[in-house]
C-alpha cells in the first residue's frame, strides 16, 4: 500500500457524514422534525392497540449511491463533495418520505380515518378535524396536528384557513369542533383509571 493518513481521514469522513445528515434533514421536509428512534434488532416493529389490533411495520431499506471515480479525486473540492453528498441525501430522503406517507396512508385507511374526494376547502378541513384525536396540555392548549400538503396547495390552504377565522358559520363550527375535542380529551383523561 501507499502511505495513508488513516486517523485524520476518519475524522474528515465524520464531518462528511454530518454534512450528509444535514442534507438528509433538509430534503426530508417536515418529516425531519419527527423524532427518530433506533431499533437495534429484528425485522419489523408493531404496535398493539388498546382494542387488541396489531399494526405491523416492516423495515424498509433506504439507500443512495455516491459515485467517485479515482481520476476525480485529485481535483475534488469541498464544494464538489458537498454537491455529491446533497444529491445522495436527496435520493435517500425521497425514499424515506415516500415510505413514510405510504405507511401513514395504509394505517389511516385500515383505521377508516380517511376523508377523500373533492377540493381542499374550509369545510373539508373541518370534516377532517372532526375525525382525528386531539390532545391538550395541562394549560389547556391544544396540540394541533401538522398538515402536510404539496407546495402548490399552500396558498389555497392559507385562504381556506382564513375563512375559518373570518366567516361566522365556519368560525362557530370550528369552535364547536374544538370544544368537542376538549370534552373528548377530558373524558379520555378521566378514563385513565385502574378500577375495582
Amino acid at each position, binding site marked *: 500500500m501507499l502511505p495513508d493518513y488513516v486517523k485524520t481521514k476518519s475524522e474528515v469522513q465524520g464531518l462528511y457524514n454530518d454534512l450528509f445528515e444535514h442534507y438528509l434533514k433538509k430534503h426530508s421536509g417536515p418529516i425531519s422534525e419527527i423524532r427518530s428512534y*433506533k431499533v*437495534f434488532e*429484528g*425485522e419489523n*416493529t*408493531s*404496535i*398493539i392497540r388498546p382494542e387488541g389490533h396489531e399494526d405491523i411495520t416492516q423495515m424498509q431499506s433506504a439507500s443512495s449511491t455516491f459515485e467517485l471515480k479515482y481520476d476525480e479525486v485529485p481535483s475534488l473540492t469541498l464544494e464538489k463533495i458537498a454537491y455529491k453528498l446533497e444529491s445522495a441525501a436527496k435520493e435517500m430522503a425521497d425514499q424515506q418520505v415516500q415510505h413514510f406517507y405510504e405507511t401513514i396512508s395504509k394505517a389511516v385507511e385500515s383505521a377508516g380515518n380517511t376523508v377523500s374526494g373533492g377540493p381542499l376547502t374550509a369545510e373539508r378541513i373541518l370534516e377532517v378535524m372532526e375525525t382525528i384525536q386531539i390532545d391538550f396540555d395541562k394549560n389547556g392548549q391544544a396540540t394541533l396536528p401538522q398538515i402536510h400538503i404539496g407546495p402548490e396547495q399552500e396558498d389555497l390552504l392559507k385562504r381556506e384557513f382564513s375563512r375559518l377565522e373570518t366567516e361566522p358559520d365556519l368560525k362557530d363550527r370550528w369552535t364547536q369542533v374544538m370544544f368537542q375535542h376538549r370534552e373528548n380529551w377530558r373524558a379520555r383523561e378521566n378514563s385513565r*383509571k385502574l378500577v375495582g
Partner: protein
Amino acid sequence: MLERIVENWLDSASERSYQNVFCQMLIAQGYTILHNTRHSPLEMGKDVIARDPQGQLVAYQLKGNPGNRLTLRQYRDIQNQIIQLVTQPVSHPNVQNEVHHSYLVTNGEIDEEAQLAIAQQTEGFRQSGYTEPDVRTISRGQMLTWANELGQSLWPSELSDINTLLELLIYDGKDFFPIDKADSLFKNLLNLSNSDDITNPEIIRRISSCAILTGIILKNFYKEENHFAIFSCWLLYYSYVISTTEKHNLTGRIIDETLDISKSEAIGSLIDLAKEVISRDHLVEGNAMADTLFYSARTTLLTGLLSVLWFHIEASGNILNELKIEIEKFIKMPPNNHMNLWGEGAVPQWLAYYWYIRRKSATMVPDVLLGQLLSKIVNRNSSNIEDDFFPTPYYSIEDIVGHQLFILNGSKGVDPLKDGNPGLASYMSEGLLHLLCRSLHKQTCKAIWPNFTRLGHTSFLPGSKWEYCLWRSESGREVMVQPELTKTWDQLCYEARDATGAGIPDRFLNDPIMLLLFLIVFPHRATPSAIRYLGYKLNKCWFIQPPITN
C-alpha cells in the same frame, strides 16, 4: 497463526485461567467431570476429579507455570500436595471406595530433575504398597496438542473472525468485556448466524471448542483480575450454548457438564468480585478524577450482583457462609445513597436488590422501593420532554455519560444517545407494575396508572426461542403495547399471575439465578415475561390469586 495464538495463551495463562479450559478439553474427550474446585477448599490435593471414558476415576492437581518450567524446587514445595493427591482416596458422593489415577498438570514444561523426583516419589508410593502409585503428568506439549485439536482446528477461519479474535486478544483487560465483538465470533463458531448443514456431534465439538476460545480471549482480563469482565464472558458463553442446544434440540451429558463448568466459572468470578468488594475501603477504580461519573452506576451494579450471589450461596447450603455474612453487611436497606437508576438498563440490577431485601425484610420497605422505581420511570418517560427520559435498556451508563460529554463538548463528535429517545415508551414498566400488583399495593398501582397508560410498553420478541439468548437477534419484532385507558384491578391481577416465562428457553427457566445474572448483563432481555417469572421464583410474597405456570 491460530496455533501461535493458542501457544501464546498457554504460555501466559495462570492456573486459574486455564483450569476451566482444561476441564472443557477433558469433557470434549469424553471425560465426566465430578468435581472442579474453584471456591471450595482444596479437595485433598485434587483440583479436578473426573471419570475417563472407560469409567476410571482420575484426579488432577493443576499448577501454573506460564512460559516457564516446573523446577525441582517448585516440585518440592508441592510435594505434600502430591502425597495427598495419590494417597488420599477421593471423597465424593458418586465415589465409593475406588482407586483413582493421579495426574500433575502444568502448562509449562517439567525440568529433568523434577521428572526424576516425580519418578522417585512414584517408586516410593509403589514400595509403600499403594495400588495406584503413579504420578502421571500432563504438561505443555500435551495441553497444546489438545488445545489445537479440540480448539483452534474448529475455529472459524474467515478473515473477519480472525480480526475479531485478534482484537479481543489485545483488548484492554481493564475494560468491560466487549460482548458485541465476541457475539459474531461465537455465533459463527456455533452456527447461530447461518444455517450450515452441520451434524449434532460436530456442533457438540464446536461447543467445546468455543469454551477453549472463551478461555483464550479472556487472557488479558484474567491478567488484570477483572472479575466482572470474566464473569460476563463466561455468562455469554453459557447463554450461547443454551441458544445452540435450543436451536438444534441437543441434550446429554456433555451439554450438561459444559454448562455446569461455565456456570461454575461465572459464579466463581462473582465470588472473587465479592471478596474484593468486601476487602476494599472504597469502591473507586482506575482514574479517580473521572470516576465520579460512574461511581453510582458501579455501586448499583455491585449491589445487584452481590444480591444474586447471596441467592446462589443461600441455595447452595452452608458453603461460603462467611462470604454470605459479609455480603449481608455490604448490602444496605434502605439503599446505599450512591445507588442510582441511570436508565432502564439498570432495572435488573435494582430488581436483584429488591428481591434480596424482600427476602430479608418482612416490612413494606422493599415494595415501597419497587413503587418508587416504577413511578420514576413512568413519570419521567410520560413527560415526553426531548432530552429528559430514561434511556432504553439497549443503552449503557457509558452511552449516557458519552451523551453528557457530547453536549458539554458543544455537540461535536458522536452522540451515543442519538435516536435513543423512544418517545412515550418504556421497556420495564409493565413487568414492575405486575410485581407491585402481586404485593397487593393497589393504591400505588392506581396512582401510577394514569401516567402508565400514556406509555407504549415495549419489548423485543425474537423470531425463535433460541434467539432470546443472543446479544442481538436478526429475526423478531419489537412490539409496543398501548394499554387500555381503563382497566379493572382484577384484570391487572390476572395479567400479573402469569409466571409461565413465555419465550425463555427451559434451561434458563430451570436456573433462575443464571437467568437473573443474564438479565443484568443483557437488560434488553428483561421482558415482562422474564420479570414476572423471576418474581415468582425469587419472591415468596404473593397476595393475589395463585400463579399461572403453564
